[in-house]
């Protein structure tokens, strides 16, 4: 294999370039009961990069094909774990244990509204490893100088930004609508609903949200779609300042991913602060 980069080199380079990459390794095989620790195939590797040919092999073309498919799904979800297969990739068989280590791209948070809460939420999101985009149609507010922590500050209407990037949003990403203004909120929510984004939240008091809900219905949003909008945004922790509110928002995002029953403002009725 002189000249060709090895699996490690390709894996390392993808991680450094922040390109999504999954490394599948056979960690346990048919000989699991043997006295020796050395098992046939243990350590065999398949490197999976989206939209590129795989590198290496787990020792069977059918197994490689199945593991490549699964690894791409795991990359999308950002999960690293052990999967079990038959010798030729059969599902529901336990012959082989394959560890798939995923290095997904950073999750993306899109914040609509260049307000005070945005600054705190953008900082909190950076702490959690997000790539952060701040978007507002008002160019006096949407400046890099006001949001130095953001990776990107976009002056545009929410629906136009979502037209451009909506297809790239996935289950690990988040859209937070903080404008408090129906003329921005409604196109942001309407634009985000058809995407695959994992979390969609909108700020505002219960009264604001009731009025916004009317506008959203007029724009053709169904009750079922409204259920996917976390509004009022955040967990019910009594947060008041922008920083406290930011914590309640990212905590709600974490709870959405883990499926934990944390008390959401959306599900309550009382006062927010």
């Amino acid at each position, binding site marked *: 294999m002189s000249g060709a980069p*090895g*699996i*490690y080199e390709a*894996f*390392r380079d993808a*991680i*450094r370039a922040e390109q999504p990459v999954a490394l599948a*390794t056979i*960690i*346990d095989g048919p000989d699991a009961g043997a006295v*020796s*620790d*050395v*098992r046939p195939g*243990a*350590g065999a*590797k398949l490197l999976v990069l989206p939209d590129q040919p795989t590198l*290496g092999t787990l020792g069977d073309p059918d197994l490689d094909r199945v593991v490549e498919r699964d690894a791409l799904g795991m990359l999308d979800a950002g999960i*690293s*774990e*052990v999967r079990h297969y038959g010798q030729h990739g059969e599902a529901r068989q336990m012959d082989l244990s394959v*560890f798939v*280590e*995923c*290095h997904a791209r950073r999750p993306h948070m899109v914040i609509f509204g260049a307000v005070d809460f945005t600054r705190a939420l953008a900082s909190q999101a950076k702490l959690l490893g997000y790539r952060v985009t701040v978007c507002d149609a008002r160019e006096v507010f949407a400046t890099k100088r006001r949001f130095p922590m953001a990776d990107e500050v976009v002056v545009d209407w929410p629906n136009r930004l979502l037209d451009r990037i909506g297809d790239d949003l996935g289950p690990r990403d988040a859209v937070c609508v903080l404008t408090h203004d129906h003329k921005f909120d409604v196109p942001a929510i309407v634009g985000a609903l058809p995407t695959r984004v994992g979390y969609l939240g909108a700020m505002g008091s219960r009264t604001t949200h009731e009025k916004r809900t009317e506008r959203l219905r007029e724009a053709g949003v169904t009750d079922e779609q409204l259920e996917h909008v976390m509004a009022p945004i955040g967990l019910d922790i009594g947060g008041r300042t922008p920083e406290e509110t930011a914590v309640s928002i990212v905590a709600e995002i974490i709870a959405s991913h883990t499926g934990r029953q944390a008390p959401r403002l959306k599900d309550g009725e009382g006062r927010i602060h």
Partner: protein
Amino acid sequence: MDEILDDIDRWRAVGQRVAVARVVDIEGSGPRDPGAAMAVNQEGEVAGSVSGGCVEGAVVGEALELLGGRRGPGITTFGYSDDEAFAVGLTCGGTIHLFVEELDW
């Protein structure tokens, strides 16, 4: 894996063989998620971690056994067990499964 790449490159550049231990599974509470990795070179130098510090010493031992040819690649388990073979445990009471192998790929 990210945080150990520089050390691995440096070691390999001077011809050191390297063993890698990666967390592949956790039962109960464990400080690091699957994918956490630690690398050990022939001299016993270490990069990265696989727990909160409870098992790293034992992992170095396994890695040196591997590089010395006294064991092969495979799963090593640390954690609470009635089996006395598991002399090293996690203070948090969890069990972690590591895959230990030489970085020869």
